[in-house]
């Protein structure tokens, strides 16, 4: 079973996403702030990360940049999501593998997850 880490501070959003992802057979866990995201990734080594750009503590872009610099963690695909239109460029610039603008349809996210998950 593949593991997906959700990093987003909007609890309602995370809750519904969790159910939808679990329904598709993914194991999920959640982090609500940017600061503890890096440590969590290092500890749990998820197969994929869904990362919001606007987070308490540390912006998602910083988290992505730190992860992509790390030798052992850079291979984990990151899908950045944001309610900010202008975030796509920053997300890709920070090393994210894909970007999805909020609000999005779950199918769009599932397609991206399948595309980026290592086999």
């Amino acid at each position, binding site marked *: 079973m593949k593991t997906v880490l959700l990093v987003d501070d909007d609890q309602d959003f995370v809750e519904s996403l969790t159910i939808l992802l679990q329904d598709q057979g993914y194991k999920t866990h959640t982090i609500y702030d940017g600061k503890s995201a890096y440590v969590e990734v290092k500890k749990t080594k998820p197969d994929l990360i869904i990362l919001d750009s*606007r987070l308490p503590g540390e912006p998602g872009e910083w988290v992505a940049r730190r992860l992509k610099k790390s030798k052992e963690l850079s291979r984990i695909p990151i899908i950045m999501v944001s309610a900010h239109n202008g975030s796509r460029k920053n997300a890709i610039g920070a090393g994210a593998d894909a970007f999805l603008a909020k609000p999005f349809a*779950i199918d769009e996210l599932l397609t991206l997850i399948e595309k980026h998950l290592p086999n």
Partner: protein
Amino acid sequence: MKKNNSEKNGRPDKNEALRINEKKFKSIFRNASDGIVVADNEGRIVDLNTAARTIFGASEKKDLIHRRLTDMVTQESAASVHKKWYKIVATGMKQGEFEVNRTDGSNRIVEYKATANFMPNRHLLLLRDITERKIEERRQMHFLGIASHELKTPLASIKAYTQLLKKYLREGGQAKVEEYLAKVDDKTDKLTTLINDLLDITRIKQGKLEFFYELFDFDELLTDVIDEIQTAKTTHKIIAKGKIGKNLLGDKNRIAQVIANVIRNAVKYSPHANQVMVNVERDGEMIAVAVQDFGIGISEKEKKRIFELYYRGTRRTINPISGLGVGLYIANEIVKQHGGKMWVDSTRAKGSTFHFRIPLRANIRRKTKTLIRKDLHV
């Protein structure tokens, strides 16, 4: 009596006409509200008017004569001004912007229109200080970014919930369907509030915020507002003290909006506290409301700006703060329109108390578009 030439032939003589013309141009030059600069081929100032001197922030004209334009703009502008200057001289008219670096260290954004060779080897620059306009444009752009983010955040949840609802409808999860429909309902209310706030600030800016004045029981309204917030927010206990005991003349919904705004702010900016105090008292013909929180507080610097449009609490302590940054601006405007006053007492890291006082009988401002119920004799 000797008649002069002009009266003899009915036309002013040539010298006289030149003098009048020169006087006219000098007067225009001196009094123009736009800055006028005459510069030579190398972009050195030959002459300038008072408005231009003000733009450059110099107290004396002589301080600017013979100085190069490139020396008076910011480093970022200098390269482009230098390059453009030779283009202006060579090709004729041009327009653009540069940023002036004043002697006092402040910067002004200036729009220019240049006319090359209006006299041999002399070039004319018309300057207009557009700093305020630019700042307003930047603020508006920044606000648009925040507004779209705030509107999309609940939409992202609604979209996810509808997909969940489809799943549960397929699987027959009745309880779940009800739970998520309630959440969709809640998010829709949030969106409605956001859109109403956006409409309110537009109306305030146009002076078209409408009021509907009626007599109502303030104590009852306060209880209703607190109950509504308390149902949704379980993190803080909202404790109310005091009574007015008399009907208030004002816009009931707008007053409710003010109360709800200060209480919601108190909760939002005190994430580690567990209560909010609401004190109400009658002071002669005024009612006084104080909402106290035990949160992050407001610095002296912030206090001055807190009722400004688009201002949001600093992000250092709680990050990120959500909201449009318009709530207190609207609340303050409503209180003012009721003939009242709003202010804040605060200590950093101890908490804030927001106060507002409004007359029991609002002195209704004439300027405002006001609807008064016909059965009220005021």
